[in-house]
């Protein structure tokens, strides 16, 4: 198995400072032709390693339809991510293995209205799916993106959100937790805005949500209240992982391995799992 755990080296093409503590790293494989062989679908994750520091699990934040490079958005949270933030710059090399895990049920989403609910760094996996859906625009109906963060400075992908806003068929709603002087848009936590401002249509709509655990918890309750069926709500779970191969025994919730059977789950599946996440 040791060979499976050896990463492929990537070069950092670009570093984008999204917020004070989130950076997006645009990566490209060093080896010729590897980029073509590296195929992923929205929702999958990679093991990102800073050699000498350790490995971390990050979802791929860009879509495979834009394939010259791929993005990982990294929030400074622990030891390795702190090393990544301080130690990595454009032109540096990192190790990548993957992609692992399952992906958003793209076939099920076809012909449906899509409501994306994201919070903080949770927009990263959604961004991959949003890009994918924009590139396959004809397959899907209306798009609504609800995105919240603690402050306006904590909103990721500001440039890209501005681009999305230019597209009339995309409805983008932003919110922050506490009022700020220059902020002209919604104020309030995501579930509240979801109920009071977005007021989504329940019919023929799939909801994809990702964010901090506490946001997911209340968003799921709100969605329940709004009348969404659990099978129409899709979320991604976060668990500590180390191998990504279903061997290291870290990410299981009951007999489900998040790294193999997840990280994408429907609310219906989540309800069946023991309460340990």
């Amino acid at each position: 198995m040791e060979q499976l755990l050896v990463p492929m080296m990537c070069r950092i093409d670009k570093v984008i400072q999204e917020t004070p503590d989130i950076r997006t790293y645009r990566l490209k494989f060093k080896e010729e032709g590897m980029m073509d062989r590296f195929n992923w679908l929205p929702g999958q994750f990679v093991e990102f390693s800073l050699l000498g520091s350790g490995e971390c699990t990050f979802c791929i934040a860009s879509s495979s339809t834009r394939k010259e490079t791929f993005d990982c958005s990294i929030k400074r949270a622990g030891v390795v991510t702190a090393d990544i933030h301080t130690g990595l710059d454009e032109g540096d090399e990192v190790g990548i293995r993957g992609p692992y895990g399952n992906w958003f049920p793209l076939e099920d989403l076809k012909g449906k209205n899509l409501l994306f609910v994201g919070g903080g760094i949770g927009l990263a996996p959604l961004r991959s799916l949003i890009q994918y859906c924009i590139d396959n625009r004809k397959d899907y109906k209306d798009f609504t993106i609800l995105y919240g963060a603690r402050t306006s400075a904590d909103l990721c992908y500001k440039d890209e959100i501005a681009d999305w806003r230019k597209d009339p068929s995309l409805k983008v709603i932003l919110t922050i937790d506490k009022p700020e002087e220059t902020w002209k848009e919604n104020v309030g936590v995501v579930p509240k805005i979801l109920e009071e401002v977005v007021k989504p249509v329940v019919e023929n709509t799939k909801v994809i949500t990702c964010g901090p655990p506490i946001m997911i918890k209340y968003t799921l309750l709100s969605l329940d209240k709004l009348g969404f069926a659990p099978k129409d709500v899709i979320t991604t779970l976060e668990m500590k992982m180390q191998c990504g191969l279903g061997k290291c025994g870290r990410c299981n919730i009951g007999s489900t391995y998040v790294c193999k059977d997840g990280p994408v789950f429907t609310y219906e599946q989540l309800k069946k799992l023991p309460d340990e996440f």
Partner: protein
Amino acid sequence: MDYTNQIREIAARLFSENKIDVFVGYRMTGFDENQVPVLIRDPKEVPRLVFNDKSVFNLTNYLKHEHTRGKRVGLVVKGCDSRSLQLLLTESQVKRDRLYVVGIACEGVVDDAGQKYQNCQECVFPDAVVFDEMLGTPKGNGQYQVNADIRELASKDLVERRAYFEEVFENCIRCNACRHSCPMCYCAKCCIDQESSTLYNGANTTSAAFHALMTWSLHLAGRCVDCRNCEKACPSHLPLHLLHKWNEQVIYENFQEHLAGVHEGDRGAFYKYSLQDPDDFIM
């Protein structure tokens, strides 16, 4: 040495007087001669308590766990256990008014073969030094003596000692059971397994074992009470007492220090100094 009945009486009395929330003692495993520590919360379970010369584990270890934190605890301590309790009190890890300590005038505990453990044979303070109530007749302090294993090993030369300890470190499986069962290791995050990449060696190699065991024993130098919880917990049966006893002896001989945890308010050799400390090894 059998204080089963007395301990049951005390525990029942403490519960009925509502002085404690939990009583930490020993019970039989139910399948062999050995005993399991037990945390009794329900007065109905008091008859499960036992105490005899198979009551080996140092119960002060349970004072650091989330299960007894903030609770009023009744506790059975032998001589060595009481010394670790004394140190925990001095280091402000437990509050004295939350404890009810049943001290034992210990006659030594025995292993599976019925043989007294080495630390019991060499015990200097068999009587509990902290207690609210004492069981048994105090025997008085013993004489400090150099550990037999240490004497034997110290007489060997450098190459032999290095080879011997290399084998010890090689056989360490880095499970950290020694640290977890040590009552004096209460740090929320231990320096030998901080998940910080540059300092911690997660790998299970000989050098990592050298690093972990040496650092650990030096952090316990002057604080080890020789209860040998670590050694009894070690699945590889490593002679961990060698490291601790050696440090204890160096401190005892060079700084004329008392053994750890004997006097109230004494934090151990590394927390004080004397102008007369040996200086000849420094250039």
